[in-house]
C-alpha cells in the first residue's frame, strides 16, 4: 500500500450546502404555516429571513407560535404549507440530522446515561468529514471519514472552555446544577460548529441572577463564534438586550420585525407597544398637520397621518415630564406612587384617563400635577380596528346572521324609504315587494356599539375573550366565537378576564347593513 498523504479540508466545506457570506440571507421562510391536528393554527403564513451571523429573537406571549417556528427551522416539525430555504436551498423536508443546525433545548435535554464528555462528543462521533488523499500516482481523491479520537478530545475540550466548564468531562449529568447543565447543552450544540444555533428559551429555567449572567455570556459567545443565533423567548427585556433583530409574534403571525430600538420606539401596533416595555396607549384623532388630539388636548407629533384619521397613540412612561399643576399640557391628580428601584412609577388620573409616568422624582398621592409630552415622545400608530366588518345574510325572520350569531336589525335601511308589511316582506319606496330571506349583506358595527354580557345566552353571538388591551380610559376587548373564529372588537370601560365566555349584544340601530354589490345588480 502506498503511503497516503493526508490533507484535511475544513469541515465547513462538508456536504452540498451552499456557503453563505456574512449578512446574506441564510434562512428564509416563505409563506410558512403549521396546523396541528387539522384545526390548531400555530403558525399562520409567515415570511421571514435571517441574515448570516445575526442574533435574531422570536418574541411573543406563550402560544404565539415562536417555538413552532423554531422547531420548523430545526426540522422537528414539518410545515403544513410554505417553504424553508437555507442559503437558497429548499430544506423544508430535510430531516433534522441532515441540517447544519443545532438546538439548545429549554429543558436542556442532555443524555442522562452519558457523562459530560460523551454528551458533548455525541455529535462529533457521528460526524463524517471529507478527507483528501493523494495516492501513489499523484491523483487526489476524497473519502468521508470519521473524526479521530484525538480530534474529538480536542474539540470537546475547546467547547468546555467556551462554556467555562473545564475539567467536567467525567462528571455525570445528574451532579450538575441547572446553570451548568445549560452550559453543557450549549457546548454540545456549538461543538458541532453549526451554521445556525437555535436556542429555545434556554434561560427560562434559571433564576434571575443566573439568567442575567448567561445573557451576557451568550451575547459574548455569539460575538466570538460568529455563527447565526436564533433565539426564542417570551421575556421582552431579554430580547431587547441581546438581539440584533427582534421578531414580535402573536397568534402565529408576525407583528413586527426590527431592531430592538425601532421596536421599542416605533411599535407597529398597539399589541407590540403593550408587549414591549411599559406604555400608555391612548385613542387619538389626527386634527391637523402632525397634530394629534388625545386626552382632550392637541399635541404636536412627528408622525404624518391623514386628518381625521382615528389612531392609536403610544407614550412611553419615561417620556412624560412632570410639571407644576398650571404649567403642564395636561393636569391630573396623582393616584399612586410605587418605588421601582431606579425610578418611581407614578399613576396620574387626567380626567377619566390613567397616565403612567416614570421618573426619578417623587410625588405624593393626592397632589395635582401638570404633565408635558414632547413631540418625539409621541408615537402614532395606525388603528387596527375602527369598525367591525362582517359578511352576513338576512334570515327569514328579517334578522341579520353574521359573526357566528344572529342579531335583530333594521332591514329597511337596505332600501331608502322602505318599510315592512305585516307578513315580513319589504316594501320599497316604489311599492315593490321584496323577500329579503338569504340576501347577502355586509355588516358594520362600531367598536363602541358592542356590549358584552356574562349571560352568554342573552347575546346574539357567544365567544371567548381572547385579548384585552388597556387604552388609557377604556379596554379594547376582542371576543372570538368558537365556530368560525369571528372576532368582535369592542371598547368597554369594564375590566373583563381573558377566556371569559360572554354573549355579544348589539342594539338593532347600531347594525349598519349594506347590500352586497352583486345582489344590488339583480
Amino acid at each position, binding site marked *: 500500500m502506498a503511503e497516503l498523504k493526508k490533507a484535511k479540508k475544513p469541515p465547513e466545506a462538508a456536504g452540498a450546502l451552499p456557503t453563505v457570506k456574512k449578512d446574506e440571507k441564510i434562512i428564509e421562510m416563505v409563506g410558512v404555516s403549521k396546523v396541528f391536528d387539522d384545526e390548531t393554527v400555530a403558525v399562520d403564513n409567515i415570511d421571514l429571513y435571517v441574515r448570516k451571523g445575526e442574533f435574531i429573537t422570536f418574541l411573543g406571549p406563550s402560544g404565539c407560535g415562536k417555538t413552532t417556528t423554531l422547531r420548523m427551522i430545526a*426540522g*422537528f416539525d414539518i410545515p403544513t404549507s410554505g417553504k424553508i430555504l437555507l442559503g437558497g436551498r429548499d430544506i423544508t423536508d430535510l430531516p433534522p440530522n441532515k441540517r447544519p443546525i443545532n*438546538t439548545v433545548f429549554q429543558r436542556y435535554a*442532555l443524555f442522562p446515561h452519558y457523562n459530560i464528555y460523551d454528551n458533548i462528543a455525541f455529535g462529533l462521533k*457521528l460526524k463524517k468529514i471529507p478527507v483528501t488523499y493523494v495516492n501513489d500516482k499523484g491523483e487526489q481523491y476524497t473519502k468521508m471519514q470519521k473524526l479521530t479520537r484525538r480530534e474529538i478530545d480536542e474539540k470537546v475540550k475547546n467547547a468546555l472552555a467556551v462554556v467555562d466548564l473545564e475539567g467536567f468531562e467525567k462528571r455525570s449529568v445528574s451532579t450538575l446544577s441547572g446553570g451548568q447543565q445549560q452550559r453543557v447543552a450549549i457546548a454540545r450544540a456549538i461543538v458541532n460548529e453549526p451554521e445556525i444555533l437555535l436556542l429555545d428559551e434556554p434561560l427560562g429555567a434559571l433564576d434571575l441572577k443566573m439568567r442575567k449572567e448567561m445573557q451576557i455570556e451568550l451575547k459574548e459567545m455569539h460575538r466570538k463564534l460568529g455563527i447565526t443565533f436564533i433565539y426564542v423567548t417570551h421575556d421582552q427585556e431579554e430580547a431587547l438586550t441581546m438581539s440584533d433583530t427582534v421578531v414580535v409574534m402573536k397568534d402565529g403571525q408576525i407583528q413586527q420585525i426590527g431592531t430592538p430600538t425601532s421596536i421599542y420606539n416605533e411599535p407597529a401596533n398597539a399589541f407590540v407597544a403593550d408587549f414591549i416595555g411599559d406604555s400608555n396607549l391612548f385613542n387619538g384623532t389626527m386634527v391637523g398637520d402632525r397634530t394629534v388630539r388625545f386626552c382632550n388636548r392637541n399635541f404636536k407629533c412627528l408622525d404624518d397621518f391623514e386628518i381625521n384619521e382615528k389612531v392609536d397613540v403610544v407614550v412611553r412612561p419615561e417620556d412624560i415630564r412632570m410639571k407644576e399643576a398650571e404649567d403642564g399640557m395636561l393636569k391630573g391628580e396623582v393616584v399612586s406612587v410605587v418605588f421601582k428601584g431606579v425610578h418611581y412609577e407614578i399613576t396620574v388620573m387626567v380626567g377619566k384617563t390613567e397616565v403612567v409616568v416614570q421618573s426619578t422624582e417623587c410625588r405624593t398621592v393626592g397632589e395635582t400635577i401638570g404633565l408635558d409630552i414632547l413631540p418625539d415622545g409621541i408615537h402614532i400608530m395606525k388603528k387596527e380596528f375602527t369598525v367591525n366588518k362582517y359578511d352576513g345574510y338576512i334570515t327569514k325572520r328579517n334578522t341579520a346572521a353574521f359573526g357566528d350569531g344572529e342579531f335583530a336589525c333594521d332591514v329597511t335601511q337596505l332600501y331608502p324609504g322602505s318599510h315592512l308589511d305585516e307578513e315580513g316582506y319589504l316594501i320599497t319606496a316604489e311599492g315593490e315587494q321584496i323577500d329579503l330571506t338569504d340576501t347577502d349583506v355586509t355588516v358594520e358595527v362600531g367598536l363602541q356599539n358592542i356590549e358584552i354580557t356574562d349571560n352568554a345566552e342573552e347575546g346574539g353571538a357567544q365567544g371567548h375573550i381572547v385579548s384585552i388591551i388597556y387604552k388609557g380610559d377604556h379596554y379594547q376587548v376582542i371576543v372570538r366565537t368558537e365556530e368560525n373564529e369571528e372576532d368582535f372588537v369592542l371598547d368597554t370601560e369594564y375590566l373583563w378576564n381573558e377566556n371569559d365566555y360572554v354573549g355579544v349584544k348589539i342594539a338593532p340601530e347600531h347594525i349598519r347593513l349594506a347590500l352586497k354589490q352583486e345582489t344590488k345588480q339583480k
Partner: protein
Amino acid sequence: MVKKILSVALCAAVLIFIYAPILLLVVYSFTDATVIGRWEGFSFGLYAQLFRSEEIMRILLNTVVLALAAAALSTVLGTAGAIGIFYSKKKVGAPLKGISQIPIINAEIVTAISLALLFSFVALYRTYFSLIIGHMVLCTPFVVLSVMPKLKQMDPNVYEAALDLGAGPTKALFKVVIPQTFSGILSGFMLSVTLSLDDYIVTAFTKPRTFDTISTYVYNAVKNGTNSSTPALRALSALIFVVMIAAVLVVNLSARKKKEASR
C-alpha cells in the same frame, strides 16, 4: 403494650399462614420417605437422587432454556411494540395499547385453548414452535407494560436532541431511547423469565408430547396426591424456593445500596 403484642402476633400469623406449606416441604425434603408427612430420619438422600437423576436434570435444562429463549424473544417484540405504540399518533396508539394489554386480563386457560386450536389448524400443534410462541404470547404484554412507563418518563426532547446532533432515527433509538428505557426492558425480561419458568397451563397445551418442563413434569408426577412416584421433586421444589428467596434478597439489597449511593 397489648396492642403491640397483638399486632406482632397478627403479622406472625399471616407469615405462618403464607409460608407454612413451603416450610413443611423444605423440612420433608430432608427425609427419604416417598409419602409426605412420614418422617424417616434426616437424610440428604433426596438431594443426591435429584442430582443423579438425568431425567430431572434434562427437564431442568429444558425449562431454563425455554424460559430464556421465550423471554428474550418477548423482550425484543414487546420493546419494539411499546416504542411503536408510544411514537404513533394518539388515534392509533391508544387503541393499540388497550388491545396489547387484553392478554394480561384474559384467563390463561382461554389463551391456552385458543393457541392449541390455532396451531392445530396450521398443523404445528405440539411442536417447539407452538411452545415458544405460546410462551411469547404469555410474556410480551408484560414487557410492553413495563417498558411503556419508562418511555413516558423520558424527556421527549432527548430523542429530538439526538436527531439534532446528527443521529438518524435508528441510531437515536439505539443510542438514546433504548438506554434510557433499559431498566424497563430489563424488568420486562425478568418478569418474562419468571412467568415462563413456572407456567403450566400454556405449556401443557402447546408442548411437544415428549417434552417436559418442571411444571408439567411435577404435575404428572404428583397427579395421584401426596404419594409421589419421584420424591426427589420435594428436594427440587425446596431448591427452587431457596433460589427464588436468594434472588429476591439480592435484587432488594442491591436496589437499597444503589439508593444509598445516589444520596
